[in-house]
């Protein structure tokens, strides 16, 4: 944690800091040496923190007006929309905030995939991140149930029924989750409780995520280890704070666009119909951010295997630091990986698209191919690529490619010659 010793200037500060070193922590956070070549893809960590706080604050306020009861929930949401002062605004921020949260987290994850941020020594940061992502999906699902519309009810029915695929105890587990023989009031009240709990679990994990980040320090676009502090770093404050702040403003423009101009475009009209256990909507579609996994679930014809495939698609990410055998972090120096990276991005987008389409005919075929490729990428392409790929020599420091006249230039040239032979 400590790059250098810190002593508060004032006497009171010193007295307090000796007893609880909060000022040392604050000093660490402001002085934290950050690679000076971080690009705007690195601003999404800060944006995600903003998203989490937004969801917690708006959620807290919504909970003051929402009633978690099967007979009253739907009406209480309409009450928030029509009667509560600024209720419409708060609810639209919360609902679209979930989508913005996922938009930011997907950019954050794919940034990590491109620049190899999950590799040694940052595996723990990555795995904590995957756990946060799983909890985000749980929170989003639980929250979507609370308005008690048709999509809420049937989404809850379909997702809880995934557990019935477990051999032997499946049915018992589903009844236990429901607290009855179908999704009903007991289900709603417990979903509300858990939806309230999870953001705070995420908050705790975010602290660990940042703590784990501050041990090795940030990865950077060229993916090399750097000495900290050195000429290759700048203090977090004011440099990164201002940059993150600017990126956050840009992000908030997009956020505000959805909230004020198309607040319902990311939702589903059927959720404005109150839950009816006798009628299933014609097309049950999850929220857009879950569609790729939904496509994987549906592409497998067997119930249990479909569920296993869907869970594996997420959990395989946790094994990524060991599946990717290349020691070069950044895709900038991995010409082949860079191409496979973009194929993976396209593959996930295709899965998302077919996940929103009916599971039949050509869509089903495309979903199956895309699912197969998704696993192929992680299980075959990445491990093999690490051994086979000819990477481009990495610079020895961040300044070297720009300034050229690095004291190590001779060493680089020597190494390059060795590679060519």
């Amino acid at each position, binding site marked *: 944690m400590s790059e250098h010793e810190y002593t508060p200037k004032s006497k009171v500060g010193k007295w307090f800091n000796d007893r609880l070193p909060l000022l040392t922590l604050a000093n660490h956070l402001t002085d934290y040496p950050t690679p000076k070549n971080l690009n705007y893809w690195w601003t999404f960590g800060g944006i995600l923190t903003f998203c989490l706080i937004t969801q917690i604050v708006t959620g807290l306020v919504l909970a003051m007006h929402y009633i978690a009861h099967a007979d009253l929930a739907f009406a209480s949401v309409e009450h928030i929309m029509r009667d509560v002062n600024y209720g419409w605004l708060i609810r639209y921020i919360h609902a679209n905030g979930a989508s913005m949260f996922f938009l930011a987290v997907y950019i954050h994850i794919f940034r990590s995939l491109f620049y190899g941020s999950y590799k040694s020594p940052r595996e723990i940061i990555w795995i904590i991140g995957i756990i946060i992502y799983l909890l985000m999906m749980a929170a989003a699902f639980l929250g979507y149930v609370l308005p008690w519309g048709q999509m809420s009810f049937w989404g809850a029915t*379909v997702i809880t029924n995934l557990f*019935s695929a477990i051999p032997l105890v499946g049915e018992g587990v589903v009844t236990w989750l429901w607290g009855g023989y179908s999704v009903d009031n007991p289900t709603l009240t417990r979903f509300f409780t858990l939806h309230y709990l999870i953001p705070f679990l995420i908050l705790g994990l975010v602290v660990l995520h940042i703590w784990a980040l501050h041990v090795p320090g940030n990865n950077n676009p060229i993916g090399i280890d750097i000495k900290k502090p050195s000429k290759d770093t700048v203090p977090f404050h004011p440099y990164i704070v201002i940059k993150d702040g600017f990126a956050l403003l840009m992000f908030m423009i997009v956020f505000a666009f959805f909230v004020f101009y198309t607040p319902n475009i990311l939702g589903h009209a059927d959720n404005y119909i109150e839950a009816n256990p006798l009628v299933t909507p014609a097309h049950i579609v999850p929220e857009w951010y879950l569609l790729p996994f939904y496509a994987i679930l*549906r592409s497998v014809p067997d119930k249990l295997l479909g569920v296993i495939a869907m869970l594996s698609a997420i959990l395989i990410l946790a094994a990524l630091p060991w599946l990717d055998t290349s020691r070069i972090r950044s895709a900038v120096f991995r010409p082949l990986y860079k191409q496979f990276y973009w194929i993976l991005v396209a593959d996930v987008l295709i899965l998302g698209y077919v996940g929103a389409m009916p599971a039949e005919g050509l869509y089903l075929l495309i979903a199956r191919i895309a699912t197969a490729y998704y696993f192929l990428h992680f299980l075959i392409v990445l491990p093999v690529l690490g051994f086979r790929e000819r990477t481009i020599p990495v610079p020895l420091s961040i300044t070297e490619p720009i300034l050229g006249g690095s004291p190590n230039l001779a060493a680089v040239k020597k190494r390059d010659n060795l590679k060519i032979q």
Partner: protein
Amino acid sequence: MTEKKPERRDFLFTATYAVGAVGVGAVVWPMIDQMNPDASVKALASTEVDVSSVTPGKTITVLWRGKPVFIRRRTKDEITEAKSVSLKDLKHPEKDEDRAKNPEWLVMLGVCTHLGCVPLDQKGDYNGWFCPCHGSHYDISGRIRKGPAPTNMEIPEYKFVDANTIKIG
């Protein structure tokens, strides 16, 4: 490593862990079991339905334990069709006689065995039910014929209380 003889302290550790585990279990179980169906949910275990208005070829849907139950009065053609299916063609082989004690009346849970959606009446490739969620096709006996659902739609416990009343549950 040399073999260490168990001593008094080892016994105390093991005994403490064992008692501790029982204690933790005794506290955890109520926390888990409180989520299971409570007494008021269990109390609503049966429903009586008047079916006098159901004419042949018509299906009514009633709510039982929060789930839809289809009650279909089948036509003669439908009964013939249901009985003519070879068990070899079935993913989950069940005779129609075992599913509909009185062949005119098919009483079953209107819940798709894939992920729990309500299938649509008189739709699909087999003249029975079709689940719009993930495309499972059921025949006129409610048996799965095509799609991801693993089993036939479930038959609940029911009996005719009199000629016009069915008691489900």
